[in-house]
């Protein structure tokens, strides 16, 4: 989290027009990790839109979270190219290691998600841990990566 930045500050930096809604929600996501209900209410008020309208946008996009993020957020690309490079095996390895299931959103400590292609197929398989991108990942190289975040 960046120090001294508040939702109010982010809002005051942009003009209150619908075109700025998505960029603003993204910014809040970057600074606070997710867009909370309280923040969504502030956004709705500032943009003079209904809360439903703000929430339907916030919840639509992959790059905006509406739930508190886990301590460890792991994403593995499941596009065709990465899959041919064994990304499915990597997912299984992580599932077994943490005893979790990909797609389970309720664990506050670790979350594992299969995600869509990131357009870096040439460098795949791709894994993202807490926003940091790792290339050419293998079943065995994940342990060193996870250590960085332990």
């Amino acid at each position, binding site marked *: 989290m960046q120090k001294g930045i508040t939702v109010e500050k982010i809002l005051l930096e942009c003009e209150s027009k619908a075109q700025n809604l998505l960029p603003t929600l*993204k910014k809040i996501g970057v600074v606070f990790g997710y867009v909370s209900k309280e923040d969504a209410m502030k956004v709705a008020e500032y943009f003079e839109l209904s809360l439903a309208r703000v929430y339907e*946008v916030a919840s639509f996009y*992959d790059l905006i979270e509406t739930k508190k993020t886990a301590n460890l957020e792991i994403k593995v690309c499941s596009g065709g190219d990465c899959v041919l490079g064994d990304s499915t095996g990597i997912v299984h390895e992580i599932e077994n290691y943490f005893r979790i299931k990909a797609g389970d959103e309720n664990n506050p400590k670790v979350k594992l998600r299969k995600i869509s292609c990131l357009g870096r197929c040439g460098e795949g398989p791709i894994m993202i841990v807490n926003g940091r991108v790792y290339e050419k990942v293998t079943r065995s190289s994940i342990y060193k990566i996870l250590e960085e975040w332990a």
Partner: protein
Amino acid sequence: MQKNIKIITEYWGRIDPLKIEDYLNVGGYVALKKFIKEMNPGKALEEVKLSGLCGRGGAGFLTGKKWEMVAEQKSKEKYFICNLDESEPGVYKDRLIAENSPHLLLEGIIISTLTIGAKKACIYLNGNYEKAREILGQAISQALENNLLGKKILGSEFSLEVEIFSGAGAYVCGEETALINSIEGRRGEPKIRPPYPTECGLFGKPTAVNNAETIANIPYIIQNGGEKYLECATKLFVLGGSIKNRGVIEAPIGLMMREVIFELGGGMSAGKEFWFAQVGGAAGKLYLEKELDAPVLGSGAILVVDKLADIHDLLLSWTGFFRRESCGKCVPCREGTFRLNEIAERLADGEISDRDKEAVLDILWTLENTTFCPLGKFAAVAVRDAVEKLEILK
């Protein structure tokens, strides 16, 4: 046909994308200067029509025709959108255009926008493309400093603003009406057409949406004429999977899949045997070895799959992708993609029932015939081919 001409990738890796001087030194913005000093929008439109340029975003619509439809609209306000959402799995050619030749793309955007009679252009950029955003942002500032953009471009009466709008991760936003919704601050759901964006697009104004690769061809067409382009048009191919030369290559348009895979692509990676190729991303059809003597269709992505690959992993990849990316607006796609993915999971676990097998055919038919936007149809393509050509249900 000239075999080795490069229109888009000529200077990749040879000039610094962060320096406008480098681009100017190799003849950059000469096309824009020609457009401003010797041509007018009408003449430019004629050249683009002559060139036969068709969209590189997948559908292959004639660019000249689209532009004419927008140019003919009476509205004073119009928009041009460069579609750089590029979320099709396996496709990253537009990202490389933005990162390696941002000024070529920008020059194309400027000429395109002025040709359709608009004063505002927007680049809808894939939300994951952070590096491209920086590079394009810098290119726009440099173009402004050099009066190639902004007010009274090169002393003419033309003015133009270009903005970058970053997406937030949603495949469906590559569809042009969903893309427009997304910029307007709504959910990125497709809208009913007609009216087409050419008539009623961004903020209700006539709008031309073009793929980034389509646009990158424009400077060449303006500089050398549409007829010349007709002789030497190229396409970017994105090669992936078990192929020797992985990556993006530029080659004459209309090449056969066999040539692209076994000549340009260098054939199979060491020790691998060809099983099938998926052409066009996750929404692409599957081709067996005997079917490769046909031109490459769609976005130009070719995923080469070898005989040892696990088809269940791929089925989960395709069906999982569409399950995640279905926007949920219509039931056949929202439910169909979900069920198809569940059945793929059971198939992978060896637990598929006869009822499942019947359901697959039902779901595929429903996706193919009843969904609101093309995404639903896309979701059926690879699975349909896997059923019919690879006999996954047998």
